[in-house]
């Protein structure tokens, strides 16, 4: 199978997010970027499919700080080809980014035809669209999201599992080629030791590809009025003190409510 994985960097929300002085974007300098979590699952699912059905995995990622580490790690995990897309900035303008990525997929030499394009089902900054359906629309391929497994591939179709709700899932038949938005891979993303990543850094060449012009302007169809940190409607009453003191206070609270 020829598998393409789209990955991108997003702000690490474990860090404090600062709003830029214009009030309409995040302060880029204060941001620490990490790979979008479900994109990492999309890579894992692609690697599992390669192991099961054979083929090759190509990872494409828009340029961003630290993205080289992500691409080398992908290579260490088993990706055959890693490509950094220049001229496309990740951020709130997801629709423009997805459009540019889709255009690049068609333009990168020896990439298409592919059987599947896999990417995360969603990211934490998908304000104006989701990448998987946007890429599917642009390529004219079928789309399915919230995917948790691809169980079979034969005769130009894939059997794909997606999540519904309350633990229910659905088994779908999807014509190939297709774009899948992966929620979670069949197994947790594999761990690679640092030594293996270092070896990949020596053995792997990250291909650089300039996004086809014109690269769409982000957020053309929407006006950002303002960013804000959420106002707490019912902010929790905070319990303070040592761990033992807090444990004691919580015990009192639970006992008062008849929960102990």
């Amino acid at each position, binding site marked *: 199978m020829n598998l393409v994985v789209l990955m991108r960097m997003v702000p690490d929300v474990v860090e404090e997010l600062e709003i830029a002085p214009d009030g309409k974007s995040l302060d880029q300098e204060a941001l620490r970027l990490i790979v979008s979590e479900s994109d990492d699952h999309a890579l894992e699912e692609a690697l599992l499919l390669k192991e099961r059905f054979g083929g090759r995995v190509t990872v494409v990622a828009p340029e961003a700080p630290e993205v080289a580490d992500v691409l080398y790690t992908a290579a260490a995990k088993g990706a055959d080809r890693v490509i950094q897309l220049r001229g496309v900035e990740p951020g709130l303008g997801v629709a423009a980014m997805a459009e540019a990525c889709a255009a690049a997929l068609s333009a990168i030499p020896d990439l298409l035809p592919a059987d599947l394009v896999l990417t995360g089902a969603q990211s934490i*900054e998908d304000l104006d669209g989701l990448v998987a359906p946007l890429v599917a629309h642009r390529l004219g391929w*079928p*789309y399915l999201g919230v995917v948790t497994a691809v169980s079979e591939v034969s005769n130009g179709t894939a059997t794909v599992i997606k999540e519904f709700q309350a633990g229910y899932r659905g088994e779908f038949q999807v014509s190939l080629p297709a774009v899948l938005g992966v929620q979670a891979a069949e197994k947790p993303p594999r761990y690679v030791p640092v030594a293996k990543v270092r070896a990949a850094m020596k053995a792997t060449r990250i291909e650089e590809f300039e996004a086809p012009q014109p690269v769409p302007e982000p957020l053309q169809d929407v006006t950002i009025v303002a960013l804000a940190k959420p106002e707490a409607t019912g902010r*929790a009453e905070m319990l303070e003190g040592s761990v033992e003191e807090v444990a004691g206070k919580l015990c009192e609270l639970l006992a008062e409510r008849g929960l102990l």
Partner: protein
Amino acid sequence: MAGNIWVVADQWQGRLTDITFEALALGREVADAFKVPLEAVLMGHGCASLAEELGCADNVIYAEHPALAEPVPETHARALTELAQQRQPRAIVIPATNTNWGANTLLAAQLGVPGLNFVVDLKAVDGALEARCVLYGGKIQVRVQPRKEPAVIGLWPGARPADQGRSERKPSVEQASVSLAAEPKVRLKRYIEPEAGEVDLTRQDILVAVGRGIQSKDNLELAEELARALGGEICGSRPVVDQGWLPLSRQIGKSGLTVKPKLYLALGISGAPEHVEGMKGSSLIVAVNTDPQAPIFNIAHYGVVADALELAPALAEAVRARKG
């Protein structure tokens, strides 16, 4: 009529979901503000009777087609595109559920208009439509105005109380025909029932929930011990299940269970909207997180800024001492 506000009815197992009524309540406010009719769009096959429940809307557009019986976002987006092109609504509100995940983005792409995700509120501001979206795991809200119509609004659960969107009134129903491909490229083969968990978490009074903050599977034991001391059960948020530390049958939130226990003790859970959706109705929410800015503290009744790995054993001991 052009310029109307549309709400797309969301169905699950032959019934309208709560978020459909939440969306209707919100849509009603927006339609009234713009002084235009509110229309509900019901799509499916042989489900005309559901239209009777959509009386919060002035009118129901019922699109009937065999292909619409399957929960395939692509098929539903295609039908909506056709309807929207004919009728030119001002805004199309689509509940963002897993069932139709991505349909709003596909619809927007097909119409060449903006599609907004993670919308928690929508209103008229100086004659323009303005949405409030929750991004970055609940840490940032964005107020945004679409520049083209129809604006496609992917609505998150909880925007309004569902009961506000229910009505005894019988709406007018208009049958609409849509032409869809005879052989869709995505087909549902079968539903897979939930794996039976050993306990029914929705019936538990006390739940100890763990999130990414517990750091490793080995630390799960600390939470399990606390759950035992409290006489409750353990459950978790999405990342914990994705890591394989807990089974899917114990996941709370968007893809998992919705619970309303008497006590929900959240250990190392940040409070992303996907998780909050499944536990916000709990009677008492106590959250423990090292990050004082964690969104979970905005919905918890009591909060502790601490390492859950330190607090859990201390609390278990205090509970055991108290219970004797």
